[in-house]
């Protein structure tokens, strides 16, 4: 990070960095960030976990969905500095320790639950958390509770099928 003598006007000074400790996909990290860094930019730009996508950067699309301390969140709306000590699970952390695909990842491939794949990491994290939340009881319920994740390719019916299959196991 560039260091410079703080200029006179406050708007021109950078907010001072802080050290954030957190666990991502089981790995501990201590990173120096500025308070304005979102969890999404931390993951993508600092930890090089680019599986999590940026679609709007303002909480409107769900592409950036990750599982934060067990709950799905839009990572673009979380300032990383507000969550010291948190546990984050991203699409890169869905596979088992043996490298086997998570059942939902496998079901997405089987049901062709994506086309371009850009919304997919967010859909997967959202779907995994949804099953955990117990909101995957019916197609109707899945449709409602997955509506924060936009898929412009329109894979919705296949996403519902994939989640139903895994939730029903």
């Amino acid at each position, binding site marked *: *990070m*560039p*260091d*410079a003598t703080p*200029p006179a*006007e406050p708007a*021109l*000074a*950078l907010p001072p960095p802080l050290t954030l400790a957190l666990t991502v996909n089981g790995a501990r990290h201590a990173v120096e960030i*500025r308070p*304005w860094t979102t969890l999404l*930019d931390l993951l*993508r*730009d600092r930890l090089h976990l*680019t*599986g*999590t*996508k*940026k*679609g*709007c*950067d*303002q909480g*409107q*699309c769900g*592409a950036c969905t990750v599982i934060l301390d067990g709950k799905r969140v839009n990572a673009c709306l979380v300032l990383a500095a507000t969550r010291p000590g948190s546990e984050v699970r*991203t*699409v*890169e952390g*869905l*596979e088992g320790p043996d490298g086997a*695909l998570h059942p939902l*990842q*496998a079901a997405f*491939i*089987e049901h*062709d639950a*994506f*086309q*371009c*794949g*850009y*919304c*997919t*990491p967010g859909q*997967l994290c959202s779907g995994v958390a949804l099953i955990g939340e117990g909101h995957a009881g019916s197609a109707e319920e*899945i449709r*409602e509770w997955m*509506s924060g*994740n*936009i*898929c*412009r*390719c*329109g*894979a*919705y*019916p*296949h*996403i519902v099928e994939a989640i139903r299959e895994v939730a029903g196991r």
Partner: protein
Amino acid sequence: MLTERHVGRPRSRVDGPLKVTGRAKYAADYATNGLLHAVVVTAPIAKGRIARMDTARAEAVPGVLRVFTHENRPRTAWFDRSWQDQVGPPGSPFRPLYDDRVHFALQPAALVVAEEFEVARHAAGLVGMECEAETPETDLKRAMTEAYVPPKRRSGIAPPPKPRGDEAKAFAAAPVRLREQYGIATEFHNAMEPHATTVIWKDGELIIHDKTQGAQNSQDWVCSIFGLAKSKVRVVSPFVGGAFGSGLRPGPQLFLAVMAALSLERSVKLVLHRDHHFGLMHRPETFVTVGLGATPEGKLCSVQVEAVAATSRFEDHQEVVVNWPGLLYDVENAAFDYRLAQLDTHTPSDMRAPGAPLGMFAAESALDELAAKIGICPMELRLLNHADEDRNDGKNFTSKELRAAYQVAADRFGWRHRSPEPRSMREGQELIGWGMATGVWEAQTVKMSASILLRADGTAEVRCGTADIGTGTYTILSQIAAEELGLPLPAVNTLLNDSAYPAAQVEGGSWTAASAGTAVQLCARSLKEKLLKAARGITNSPLASATMEEVRFTGGRIVLARDPSHAVTLAACFRELGEEKIEVEETATPGLLSKMRYSSYAHAAVFAEVRVDEELGQVRVTRVVNAVAAGRILNPKTARSQILGGVVFGIGQALHEEGIPDHALGRWMNHNMAEYHLPVNADVPAVEVIFVEERDALTSPIGVKGLGEIGIVGTAAAIANAIHHATGKRLRGLPMTLDKVLPR
């Protein structure tokens, strides 16, 4: 073991594992040491000039390297020609940071480049601009009075057909007449991946990861604008997060990122903010007037279609809007007119099936109105007027299984149970409506090259410059190569959208499968010739006199069909050739002769059910059946997804998507994904997709017509017709939001 069959079988996407693990890399996913981040600042007005630019405060922020504006940008090409690309319309392309003129709302006016993204974003907010505003015109209703026939046609876009018969006279004499105007709001592509470019700069050479539907189109554009040799610029974009036409023309992000990288001699990443996309790409607002004259039995006597579509002040964007009904229906007297009107916006971009869903929404709604007027079944009306030849061009169709599509879709939908009267079906507070419409899209082929590299170990690599934007191209090209060469699917690795690969046109227009697929098949066939020749040459070869017709390639061997004990392994062929690998490149060119003689289109029959809350006016689409006749289906699994995606796009067009302008300011009021509504999961019902058997040997050697667009065409009309059936209300403007549905 018999030949491995892949083509025509449902196969999971070969790029699926990369996409579900986050390992598929999109344009903004690349990084390198010292990567700089750029952020665009847009002009605060929609029209006028930038009188003063204040960048001093932004540049004083630590970590900011440069703020580029029209005042300090490096010199680049000046002539329009240098800025034109493979697919752009006639005119003078927009040049970012070119001068002080502001042509449209959200026009990029400055680029802030900094060591960190957040620093660039912060500094972008400190760039000051003083502007002299002029009054913008964004109201098509007003601008329409000055609509004109585009003087220069856009290449690749069919002009309106010549008139036939005497439409005016036939219309005047027709016992049943109808003439209505339909309107379609501005729509925005909103692919989930923002438009982004990462430029990796190394000693003056550039590796560019750009969101593009054609790596070579981007490469050519960059070289032409910056005067660079092709050898210095490579565009590598293996994954594209949807585009729907928005990645056909190279975008401002590409220019700006390259400009910054070349000036600063550093690597630069630029991701456009979601809001900024609304200024740069859209489907044009269009008004379509349809006049139908018919006999009391429903036979069409005349068709008239007139459209006025929006374009910018600097380019004549053109689409095929008015041609469709004259093509689909057998009518003696027809007249067509297509005009443009200029607005102070960016030039529209092609968006999924450009033109067709607009003209077809109008035409298929008008037919439904006619059916209601006469009192016959809307499907019967279409069958009664079904065209067995293309009357627009006086050609035969290569194939047209539309009748079969109507039939199978109607059966699956249960259409015969429809009670014809509007408002005659309900459940509690919900009115139920059933509607249908036709879809059509031209089946095109373009020139494309591909290569296959086959190794002695029985693995192969397919390369082609074209893109897979989610369309399944990786998978179908692998299927074609594997089937031809008798290899298992995982043995074939397909690589796409790299400017270093065999030359290809941009991915689009539903032409990729037919064109790239044919090129891959040609490659495989020429490899097979070489291999069989080698097999014959082996001493005491069991295939010494075998011809291509007599052998099969299967399981890594060449076998004699009539006696599989006569076989030569591919490894033995390679030994005979003294090679470890062989590579061939072939080019597929459109069959011009058949193009001159025949017309080729994909067709669809779309049936939709809606439920309308009588008190709230809320419309839910509860069922869609779409039967598609589009030649041979290479992979029913990915093909179904393409049609599904088109239907979902159509639902958005029908019910949700609308750019809402403030004409006083000339700005979009809803330039984000919260206020510009896209269909979400809860909006989309079970959709049934049926592929009708259709043999077509003339469109492309592999029998394919293409599927990227056909799914959207007809969907909005089917929904509009269903809403009419449910409510008795005819809505002639898209989207059909609840304020329009509610009784006034």
